C-alpha cells in the first residue's frame, strides 16, 4: 500500500466519521419527531428526508451545488463568513452527511418506535420535563437503533461517490476511496484501483457487521 493509498483511506474514514457526527443531531431530532409527533406536513418531511435515498446521487449533488455554490442561498451566507464549501473537504462532509442521513433517520426512528411510550408517560408523571424524558428515557432506550443508524450512515458516507464528485470533484485534496477507484480505473492504474477496492471492502464489511450486531442485539 502506498502512502497515497493510506492518505486517501484515512481521509475517507475521518471525513465519514465527521459526517456521521454532523448528521447525528439533526438525524436524531428528525427520527424522534417522525416517531413521536403527529403534525401537518409530517408526510412531506418524511418524504423529503428519504429523498436522497431514491434520487440519483449526482442529482442530490446538483441540488447541493445550487444551495452551497457561491451564488447559492446558503453558499453566499457561508462565504460572507469566509467559509468556502465547494471543492473543499467541507463539500465532501456535506455530501456524505446528506447521503447518509436517510439511513441514519430510518434506523434511529425504528429505535424510538420500539420504546414503550409507557416509560415516557410515567417519567413525565414523576416530574420529568419533556427534555429530561427524552435524554433519560427515550434516547437511552433507543440506543441500539441510534448506534445502528450511525453505523449505517457512516457506511453510506464511506462509499459516497455521485454527490461527492459533483460538489468536491476528484482533486488530490478531496479524493475519497470511491472517487479514487473511479479515477484510477479511468486512468488505467488498475493495481491502485484494486488496492483501494480491497481497503474499501474491508472497512465497509467491518462497519456493516457492527451495525447488524447493534440492530439484532447479539
Amino acid at each position, binding site marked *: 500500500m502506498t502512502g497515497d493509498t493510506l492518505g486517501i483511506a484515512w481521509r475517507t474514514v475521518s471525513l465519514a466519521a465527521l459526517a456521521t457526527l454532523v448528521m447525528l443531531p439533526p438525524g436524531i431530532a428528525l427520527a424522534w419527531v417522525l416517531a413521536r409527533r403527529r403534525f401537518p406536513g409530517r408526510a412531506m418531511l418524511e418524504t423529503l428526508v428519504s429523498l436522497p435515498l431514491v434520487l440519483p446521487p449526482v442529482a442530490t449533488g446538483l441540488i447541493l451545488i445550487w444551495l452551497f455554490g457561491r451564488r447559492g442561498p446558503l453558499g453566499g451566507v457561508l462565504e460572507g463568513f469566509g467559509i468556502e464549501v465547494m471543492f473543499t473537504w467541507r463539500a465532501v462532509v456535506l455530501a456524505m452527511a446528506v447521503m447518509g442521513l436517510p439511513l441514519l433517520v430510518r434506523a434511529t426512528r425504528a429505535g424510538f418506535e420500539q420504546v*414503550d411510550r*409507557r*416509560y415516557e*408517560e*410515567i*417519567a*413525565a*408523571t*414523576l*416530574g*420529568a*420535563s*419533556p427534555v429530561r*424524558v427524552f435524554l*433519560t*428515557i427515550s434516547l*437511552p*432506550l433507543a440506543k441500539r437503533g441510534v448506534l445502528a443508524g450511525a453505523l449505517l450512515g457512516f457506511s453510506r458516507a464511506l462509499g459516497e461517490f455521485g454527490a461527492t464528485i459533483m460538489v468536491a470533484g476528484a482533486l488530490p485534496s478531496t479524493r475519497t476511496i470511491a472517487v479514487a477507484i473511479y479515477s484510477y480505473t479511468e486512468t488505467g492504474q488498475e493495481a491502485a484501483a484494486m488496492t483501494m477496492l480491497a481497503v474499501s471492502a474491508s472497512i465497509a464489511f467491518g462497519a456493516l457487521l457492527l451495525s447488524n450486531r447493534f440492530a439484532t442485539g447479539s
Partner: protein
Amino acid sequence: MPVPITLDFSLRQGDFTLEIHEQVEARVVALFGPSGSGKTSVLESIAGLRSPDRGVIRIGSRTLYDVEGGVDVPPHERNVGYVPQDLALFPHMNVTRNILYGAGSTPDVGRAAALEQILSLLELRPLLERGVSDLSGGERQRVAIARALTTSPLLLLLDEPLTALDSGLRARILPYLERIRDELATPMVYVSHDEAEVCAMADWVVELELGRATRSGPRLGDS
C-alpha cells in the same frame, strides 16, 4: 388527613364514554368495578396522560384541569404519583435509580428524611443495587410505589396494585399500603375490583360500571 377531591369530567374514547361527577373528602378513594368500567381512564386523566373533553379535576386547593378556566397542567407539573398496573419500571436503570428518578437533582434534608422513611416503610434497602429484571412481583410492586412516593406527591394513584400478585403476596403487600396511608398520610385514589382490598384501604368508594358511577359512599354497597 382527608383531602377534598373533585373529579367532575367526561372523556370520550371511541365508543366508550366516561362520565364522573364526584366531590369527596377522603384519605383513600376507591374506584371499584369490573374491567372496562373506566377506572384506569380516571387515574390517567388525573395524572394528565389523557385529556378529558370537559370538566374539572381538583385535588385539595390545586386545580389540575378545568376546561372553562383554561387550565390543563402538563403531567410533569401535576405532582401526582402514579403506579400503573404494568408498573413500567425503567428497564435500563437499577432499583436505586428508578426510585430516585422523581426525587429531583437537589435533595434537601427534608427530602432525604422522607426518602429514608419510604425505604424503611417498604423494606427496600436490600434491593437497592438490584436490576429491575431480578425482582419478584412483590418487590417490583414496592419499587414502583416507592418511585411514585419520592416525588412527595399530592396524591398517589394506584391501579390494581395487588391484582398481579398471588394471595400470599397480597396479604404481605397490603400492610405496606396501609402504612403509606397511615404514616405518610398521602391521599390515594385506589383502583381495584377486589372487595376485601377496597374494604381494607378505602374510606370512600365510587363504584363504576361502563364508564358511569353507579354508587358512591363511605363503604361498598351490597350487590
